């Protein structure tokens, strides 16, 4: 039994199963929710098996078609990929459950939600596992196109507009990335990440390619000031879709960026380039939070909060140069996991609230004690992780980032993290205080269970992950391009 | 020089004026119908001459045959499309140019 567990390529099934299920959901729309649930459970299972294998036997690769790189494509199940898969499994499972209740059979959206979402899921997992620059391009396109279709799902003018923005930004981004891949192939004759990591020279050409790919991916991750497309797209999509876009999809280009910067081009990127990304990250944290403080609609508030949180991920680039590399690396990956869970949960709660109240204007959402109050408290629970309050996973992540900033002596980033936390509490508080305000309106009906429990469960998981962060933290470094002690001490 | 090459050059040179005339016609003629007329000249005769020139250079008969097939297909579709365009224009109310505007 153990032999199979430790040798079978479990991770490929996280790609294959959703792909097949997507086709089935397209063929037989009536059975799509069932296919979705079965897929969600099995993906969770396969992720767990992958985690177990990595835990016991370390990271592993798979040469697709039996062809060794550089001829073939390599799939890699390593620590960073695993954390992404965990995020994908948790968010995917929750959103799938929620979606069975959110979209009804009579709803045309259901017919297309399932195939699109399952394709998106397969694409995300494929991207996380890919070890090949060009294959990353293809998976990224699959991710983007399915996200666009999902963003436009409800067909409202705002959604169509947001989707169009998303699409054009996505095209610009992926073509820029592809031009970088072209230069790399021209220079080194391979697109395999591992091989490139061994051969890349730190010259102007590599820098040009890195700059092109980075620019494209920044656009796709929606880093400030290239975030313009994100809030409209995320805020006007149906809530389960928003949860996926914010919780999962923005992390896809992010992982590519991390792989490029730390694995392929560790010596090519200059400190100036890293700090540029770090400063843009700081800009995102502050700008996104300030915008979130100003929004009048709950979903827009959450969407701008995503803009802000993306900024934290980019602190990795300046902080991971030097001794604090492992600290920052683990911190950012845990933050990805924490943010994925909490943000998805927040969007799902938004969905339930919108369903109940018929709108998501903050001014009209007061509701102590009633149905809304309870939903708002779940929102607040998810926000505990988002803000980074203990004992949540967000706290552990933020703690590591603070440690990294101190070890690296980067006080500027430390101040931004602190300020960002306060601003985040500020916009969360705007929502939280509504939970305690007595509402004048007549009581609303109670939401069906399936719209209440999944987001609550996900926020609880996000909080409890803080107490169980030990193994994820260690696993994040399995096969990662950085290594070192996670919590460094600098006793002279 | 191989006589085949000479023949090819002759055909190519002969094709050039048709294309030139067709293009000038496309740009300068006054209405849709006249332009279509100019265009089909280039397609049919110009391309035909070029195909002949190239067919002479082909290594096998099969290649030559395929080249001729291309010419046939282009003529066929050219004629059909020209007809459709002209008819659409007529139905849209365009009057053929009568030399007076």
């Amino acid at each position, binding site marked *: 039994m153990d032999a199979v567990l430790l040798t079978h390529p479990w991770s490929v099934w996280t790609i294959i199963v959703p792909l097949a299920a997507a086709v089935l959901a397209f063929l037989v729309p009536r059975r799509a929710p069932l296919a979705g649930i079965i897929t969600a459970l099995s993906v969770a299972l396969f992720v767990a098996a992958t985690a177990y294998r990595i835990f016991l036997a370390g990271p592993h690769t798979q040469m697709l078609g039996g062809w060794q790189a550089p001829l073939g494509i390599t799939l890699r199940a390593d620590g960073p990929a695993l954390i992404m898969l965990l995020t994908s499994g948790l968010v995917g499972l929750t959103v799938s459950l929620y979606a069975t209740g959110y979209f009804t059979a009579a709803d045309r959206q259901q017919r297309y939600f399932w195939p699109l979402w399952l394709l998106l899921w397969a694409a995300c997992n494929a991207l996380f596992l890919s070890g090949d620059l*060009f294959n990353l*391009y*293809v998976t990224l*396109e699959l991710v983007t*196109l399915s996200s*666009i*279709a999902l963003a*436009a799902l409800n*067909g409202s*003018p705002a959604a*169509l*507009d947001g*989707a*169009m*923005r998303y*699409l*054009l930004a996505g*095209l*610009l981004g992926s*073509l820029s990335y*592809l*031009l970088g*891949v*072209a*230069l790399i*192939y*021209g220079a080194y*004759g391979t697109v395999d990440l591992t091989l490139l990591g061994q051969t890349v020279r730190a010259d102007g050409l590599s820098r040009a390619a890195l700059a092109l790919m980075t620019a494209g991916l920044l656009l796709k991750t929606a880093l400030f000031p290239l975030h313009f497309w994100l*809030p*409209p797209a995320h805020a006007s999509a149906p809530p389960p879709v928003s949860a996926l876009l914010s919780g999962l999809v923005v992390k896809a280009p992010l992982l590519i960026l991390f792989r490029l910067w730390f694995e392929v081009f560790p010596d090519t990127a200059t400190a100036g380039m890293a700090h540029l990304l770090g400063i843009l990250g700081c800009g995102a944290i502050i700008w996104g939070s300030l915008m979130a403080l100003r929004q*009048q609609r709950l979903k*827009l508030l959450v969407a701008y909060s995503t803009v802000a949180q993306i900024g934290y991920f980019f602190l990795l680039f300046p902080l991971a140069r030097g001794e604090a590399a492992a600290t920052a690396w683990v911190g950012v990956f845990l933050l990805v996991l924490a943010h994925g869970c909490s943000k998805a949960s927040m969007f799902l709660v938004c969905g339930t609230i919108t369903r109940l109240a018929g709108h998501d204007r903050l001014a009209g959402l007061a509701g102590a004690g009633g149905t809304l109050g309870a939903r708002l408290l779940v929102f607040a629970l998810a926000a505990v992780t988002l803000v980074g309050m203990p004992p949540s996973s967000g706290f552990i992540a933020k703690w590591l980032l603070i440690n990294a900033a101190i070890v690296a002596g980067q006080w500027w980033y430390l101040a931004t993290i602190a300020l960002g936390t306060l601003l985040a509490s500020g916009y969360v508080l705007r929502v939280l205080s509504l939970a305690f305000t007595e509402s004048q309106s007549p009581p609303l009906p109670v939401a069906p269970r399936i719209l209440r429990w999944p987001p609550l469960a996900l926020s609880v998981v996000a909080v409890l992950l803080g107490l169980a962060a030990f193994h994820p933290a260690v696993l994040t470094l399995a096969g990662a391009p950085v290594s070192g002690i996670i919590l460094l001490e600098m006793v002279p | 020089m191989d006589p085949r090459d000479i023949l090819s050059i002759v055909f190519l040179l002969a094709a050039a004026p048709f294309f030139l005339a067709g293009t000038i016609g496309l740009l300068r003629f006054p209405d849709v119908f006249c332009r279509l007329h100019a265009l089909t000249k280039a397609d049919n005769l110009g391309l035909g001459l070029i195909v002949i020139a190239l067919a002479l250079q082909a290594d096998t008969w099969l290649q030559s045959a395929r080249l001729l097939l291309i010419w046939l297909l282009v003529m066929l579709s050219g004629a059909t499309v020209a007809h459709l365009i002209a008819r659409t224009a007529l139905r849209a109310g365009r009057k053929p140019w009568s030399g007076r505007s």
Partner: protein
Amino acid sequence: MSVPLIYTAAGIFLFLLGTYGLVAYAHLLRKILAANIMGSGVFMAFIAVAGRTPGAPDPVPHAMVLTGIVVTVAFTSVALALAVRIARTSSRVHLSGRDEEQ
């Protein structure tokens, strides 16, 4: 200067020309055209930059560009469908202004 480099340079220029068009024009169809021109530029640079190998041309970039062309067509078709839908629902062929964004 070798021949592939000419085409590589042309590809880069096409890419930037497309970028300009994508950013500068408001009409959605034009933006989509521009994106396609960008794509062609990238593909040209890809083939040309990899086409400098001695002997037979390297088939791998050819296959990649084929994939790229197909992916771009898929994107184009969705983008056009989206543009048509926008035109049909709101009778405009450009993105909404900043004021409507909130």
